[in-house]
């Protein structure tokens, strides 16, 4: 099989407008991946599936990954001369920067014909809240059908062009996306009219008590 770097060069030669980034995996497995821009993802997927020498006709695994917003603290050191004539003082200033999070879909491709692989594709959404749309690769590989539905269900990524995008594991009226890192499980799984015990403690932790009405009845 061609190396990932060669595949990337081939893709860039074929799609000059596309952005294909090589993401290295520092672990011992060294399974590197290609980050595609959503606009060209489906064309690139078709190219990977059909062009001779690659023929990745089998999409094995489709995964969602949630990367929440990260607060990065950067420390810069500046030396300030000591007015008393001593050695220079080193002052650390810390600046906080919010790195926006994103949702990611990861595709593991193999070739059943040439028996090579994997090539790992990654697609990233713009953020985690309102721009969560990615192109669906189900028209290219049918095996993505249920797995993309599962990502939609558990992570909340909306796949454009999916033939049947519904919740698959959770029930249809369910509101949240349980596999997100900031998901909070409901306080009581079986509703009870007067919460007490553990359920009450959890509810009080998650929902701040409403502001006490002035002149309300005594407790």
């Amino acid at each position, binding site marked *: 099989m061609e190396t990932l770097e060669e595949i990337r060069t081939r893709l860039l030669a074929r799609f000059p407008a596309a952005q294909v980034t090589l993401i290295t995996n520092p672990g011992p*497995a*060294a399974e590197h991946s290609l980050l595609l821009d959503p606009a060209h993802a489906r064309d690139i997927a078709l190219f990977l599936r059909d062009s001779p020498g690659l023929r990745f006709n*089998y999409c094995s*695994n489709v995964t969602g*990954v949630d990367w929440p917003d990260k607060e990065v603290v950067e420390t810069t050191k500046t030396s300030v001369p000591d007015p008393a004539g001593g050695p220079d003082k080193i002052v650390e200033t810390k600046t906080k920067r919010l790195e926006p999070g994103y949702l990611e879909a990861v595709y*593991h491709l193999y070739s059943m014909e040439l028996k090579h692989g994997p090539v790992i594709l990654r697609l990233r959404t713009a953020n985690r809240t309102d721009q969560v749309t990615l192109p669906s690769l189900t028209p290219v590989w*049918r095996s993505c*059908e249920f797995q993309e539905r599962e990502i939609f269900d558990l992570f909340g990524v909306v796949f454009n062009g999916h033939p049947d995008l519904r919740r698959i*594991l959770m029930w249809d009226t369910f509101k949240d996306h349980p596999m997100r890192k900031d998901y909070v499980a409901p306080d009581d799984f079986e509703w009870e009219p007067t919460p007490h015990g553990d359920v009450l403690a959890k509810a009080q932790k998650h929902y701040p008590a409403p502001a006490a009405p002035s002149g309300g009845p005594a407790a």
Partner: protein
Amino acid sequence: MTPSDPSTLNPQLSAPFAAPGGATVRPVHDEFHGDLLEVSLGPQHPSTHGVFRMVATLDGERIVKLKPVFGYLHRNHEKLGENTTYLASMPYTDRLDYLCSMTNNWAYALAVEKLAGQPVPDRAQYLRIILAELTRLVNHSCLVGFLFNDLGTSFTPLLYAFREREKILDLFEALSGSRMMHNYQRFGGCRVDPSPDWLAAASKLVDNFPRFLDEFEELLTGNEIMLARTQGVGVLPRDLAINAGITGPMLRASGVAYDIRKVDGYGFYPRFDFRIPLGEHGDTYDRYMMRILEMRESVKILQQAFRELPAGPIMDPKAKIRGFRPKPGEAYGRIEGPKGEIGFHLISDGGPNPYRYRIRPPSFINLTVLEDMCLGHTIADAVVILGSIDIVLGEVDR
């Protein structure tokens, strides 16, 4: 009776409904067609192998649309995996597919070993192969039994299969302490070393297994009702099987030679001499035969493994059990489970818990083509087709 073309066998097969690509409802409003009838099959139905539901739309007796409904057994296994340490997820993997705990364990151990760069000693590799192939025997013989239950044989073949299964489960129990929830593999080896007595008993069982298969086949393979009900039913074309990511015996029944034991050569499989049975028509009968033939190949692998099993440690002495924290990175480890490719995709951020823990469930993805295979058939055939896919709902719903 070996038909060369399945469609000649059953002329209704090339029914006008069997459209490729999942085109489903065909609204016809003329005097020959009545209203479409929607039938909800399951979740509490003995032929759905657990809590699985199919919503079938019928035109007369023929299925024109069939939507599977999942999630009745969903407990968000992947979230559980993210909230526990790597090793604590091992017993949970037993509960995925409770017929093949050993292969689930192995797939997970393989993924973590890949993630951490952990070698495995020779004896443990052989033990893993022995246990995985015994699991394949258990799974396939049960599947054949259940398939015949769906065909209406009312338990006789299933009890033949369970008789053999119990013998193997006794071995598993003697080794791991549990009949079905083995929790046997560890990162860098196995948990218990089998005694010489155990090995002798297992070897004897394996030597006797072909006799059971002969008996089983004599009873079932040529059975006329079985041939009539399965040949040409639920044909899965080769291209669709590849595109839909079907794996395991179901893929090979459609004539695609893709077995991860050969392709990836994980473990010590390249050292073993075995063949991959291939089907020709991709119908239910071929899927049944794949299981029988694979069991015969498994027996060959097992006999070879018992002959060559080396002495030595079963755990890598440098393997870290406590405070196991793989370096940041990700890995996808996959093996050929009895139902297909079972894989684990792990992302580590350097902590004691995986950052992302994903299971690639074979039977869930094999269900993608359930609708395509059932279109144009009757409900009774849909039950048989579902039985031949071989699903376990613990794994489908996770």
